[in-house]
């Protein structure tokens, strides 16, 4: 592992059965002690005001789990990156949507991937989505009260567990860990929620589910200033995750405007 990456003091002895492992894993601490966030240091002022603008959503249906997100990284009023990746694959059957501070989310996703891979190597099977969510939640717990901000939804397909099938968990750095069938996170989430509430049901086909997810992100990007640019859609099934080509929502906007104009013209002609 590279220097400078933050390690935390995770206790895997109960999980992996290796007591010797625990000592070797207690590596140099750049991170807070479990009890006290920062060891008598002055709080560093933020270099720029951070904003948590995004729209991500995920829901469970008969065809698996669908996750969608916009691609705008904003920094108060600046669009820092119009083509960022907010849905990060963790392993072949688990993706995570990210919201909050993108730096924190990217880091914690990598840490989670590493821990899940280690679990898989030690135990010969993948950790369930529920276990992954619990792991992430416990890893984030020492940072509660600090400025760490991670709000992720873990979307996965579980095999070989008592509850196999699609699974969706919401984990956030405040400490929440919730299982559910529909989540939307971020500043654009209210706009997406109303579209999703209208259309999401268990019995949707993959095409219908994709279209609802795209529409929900589109509506959120239309109204929310901090969401925009493109939409990413990931679909998790028993075979793993697949990704739809990234679509620019500008095209969708113009298409809709054009079709509205055409229906308006048609109506006027009829009158």
């Amino acid at each position, binding site marked *: 592992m590279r220097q400078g990456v933050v390690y935390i003091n995770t206790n895997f002895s109960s999980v992996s059965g290796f007591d010797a492992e625990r000592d070797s894993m207690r590596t140099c601490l750049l991170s807070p002690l479990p009890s006290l966030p920062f060891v008598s240091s002055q709080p560093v002022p933020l270099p720029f005001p951070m904003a948590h603008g995004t729209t991500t959503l995920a829901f*469970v249906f*008969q065809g698996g789990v669908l996750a969608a997100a916009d691609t705008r990284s904003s920094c108060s009023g600046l669009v820092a990156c119009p083509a960022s990746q907010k849905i990060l694959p963790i392993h072949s059957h688990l993706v995570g949507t990210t919201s909050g501070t993108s730096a924190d989310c990217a880091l914690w996703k990598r840490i989670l991937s590493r821990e899940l891979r280690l679990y898989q190597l030690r135990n010969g099977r993948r950790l369930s989505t529920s276990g992954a969510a619990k792991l992430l939640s416990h890893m984030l717990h020492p940072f509660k009260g600090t400025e760490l901000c991670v709000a992720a939804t873990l979307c996965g397909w579980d095999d070989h567990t008592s*509850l*196999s*099938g*699609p699974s969706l968990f919401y984990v956030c750095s405040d400490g929440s860990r919730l299982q559910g*069938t529909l989540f939307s996170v971020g500043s654009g989430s*209210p*706009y*997406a*929620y*109303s*579209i999703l*509430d*209208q259309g999401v*049901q*268990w*019995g949707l086909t993959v095409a219908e589910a994709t279209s609802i997810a795209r*529409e*929900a992100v589109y*509506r*959120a990007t*239309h*109204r*929310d200033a901090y969401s925009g640019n493109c939409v990413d859609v990931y679909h998790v099934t028993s075979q793993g995750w697949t990704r739809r080509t990234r679509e620019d929502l500008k095209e969708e906007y113009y298409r809709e405007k054009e079709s*509205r104009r055409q*229906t*308006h013209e048609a*109506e006027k002609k009829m009158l």
Partner: protein
Amino acid sequence: MALEDICNFKDKPTHKTFPFYASEDTSVSVFTEAFNFKWRGEMTSKKASDVPLEFHVPSLFKRPSSRASHSVSVRRPFPLSHGTTTLGFIFQGGVIAAADTRASAGGLVACPAVHKITPIHSHLVVTSSGSGADCMLWERILTREIRLYQLRHKRRLSISGTAKLLSLMLHPFKGTDVCVALTLCGWDKLIYVCSDGARLQGDIFSVGSGSPYAYGVLDRSLSWSLNKEEAILLAREAVFRATHRDAYSGNNVDLFHVTAEGWRQRQREDLKEEYYRDMEKRGLLGFSNWFTHLFLEE
């Protein structure tokens, strides 16, 4: 107060200062001749029709820039919350205004059956959001002023004029705790006026804590060419989705339809019924939650 104006009765004001500063003697209530409206075409004069608008400004009125040494600040009895969902949009058949009916105060549902849409006159309806008390007061003041204008000038003030009047009346209270966000719905126009000073005309407005949820639904399905039933269904659906997700909106939905013939009110509907209908339609009524689907699949 209207009778007082008609009879040209004027109380003697003790102070004639504008803009108003909190006076040293805070126990005296002060009149302000804040508004001396000069309608178009009329010069300054003391004609009977030119009676200025007078306000009782309470002595505890505080402005951010006031230098009053001993202004008493009244502690709020409960936390004010501006939770609501109101919306209005224009379509070919007129204007639809819809709102929920929950008045909340912090976490308490203070009243589950409030009227958030009030008619001002036969062709103008106003939806209110913000502080309930402020909205009720300002609606009454607005109604009074509109009626007086109509009596004095023998014609109704236009919707744009009404909006401008309201905006100007609210202006002295900018920076205070007055919180009023009204949408004036006429038969062909929709104007949003708020106590921050905004006055915007548009085709679609939704105001309140539940407004993002309503916007999502409205943006999707709203078009000019809807017929009346579709527009009403859309407005109901938008308020329903907002009340489903927003904790501060709920209970019933009120709907008004304003056309060139005037406004018509739909009967108030309990959204609980709508919720059960929606659950049934999606096949979830028999199940406590969705996970039973997962169990049944195996």
